[in-house]
């Protein structure tokens, strides 16, 4: 199925869990914030969170900034 990950279309396996997706693309859960379709996903629900086709997923981390 297709999702939109940080603005780019991406093919992932059906019913993939958020935590599996993060580990597949090499993103450390620690320090990462996730929003799905504009809604923030609480960290404690990452493991059970199922991704649906067409979901817009945003992954954010800290960078340098004033």
């Amino acid at each position: 199925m297709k999702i939109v990950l940080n603005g780019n279309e991406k093919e992932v396996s059906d019913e993939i869990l958020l935590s599996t997706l993060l580990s597949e693309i090499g993103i450390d859960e620690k320090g990462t914030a996730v929003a799905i379709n504009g809604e923030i996903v609480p960290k404690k629900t990452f493991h059970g969170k199922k991704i649906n086709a067409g979901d817009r997923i945003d992954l954010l981390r800290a960078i340098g900034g004033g």
Partner: protein
Amino acid sequence: MDELKIAGKTFSSRLLIGTGKFPSNDSMRDAIESSGAQIVTVALRRVDLSKEEGDILSYIDRNRITLLPNTSGARDAKEAVMLARLAREAGLSDLVKLEVAPEPRYLMPDPVETFKAAEILVKEGFIVLPYINADPILAKKLEEIGCATVMPLGSPIGSNRGIKTRDAIAMIIEQSNIPVVVDAGLGAPSHAAEAMEIGADAVLVTRLSP
């Protein structure tokens, strides 16, 4: 010198460091360590999945340093609130340097949207440090709704022009019961010294643009 207190947290350093303009994470870490600063700002951005990015957090000793995530990039209250919530969910901090800057040229803070966002974030339990123009009325109103500090600008971000808002900052300091942190425009050690002479509680500086 006595200690700086922000929302019940105590700091011995009155120097806050921005992490925006360092050529490498190593030089940023060295600057933070040498400065003795205990509060360091970071921004929150979408991860660029097309390239390997060094993790800035692994260069900051969080046993010693309090992170101050900012809401840079926010153009209105809604975007700023979203960024603050994301930063908290990412485990960065309950502190937030609230920045709402809708116009790209001078990045001047929007007082109306900043106030709206501050009201929401204070209610949600954030420790809110709003970046504002040096406006004594706005500063007082932000104090009244529960902000932890106010952060008036000396001159526009990145301009290095020093404190061009001296009289207004002095008024803010005179009337304030919360710490006043002079932020933005400080481009020389003498500018930081001037802020402290006026009576500011702290300053926020970052690396000068080359």
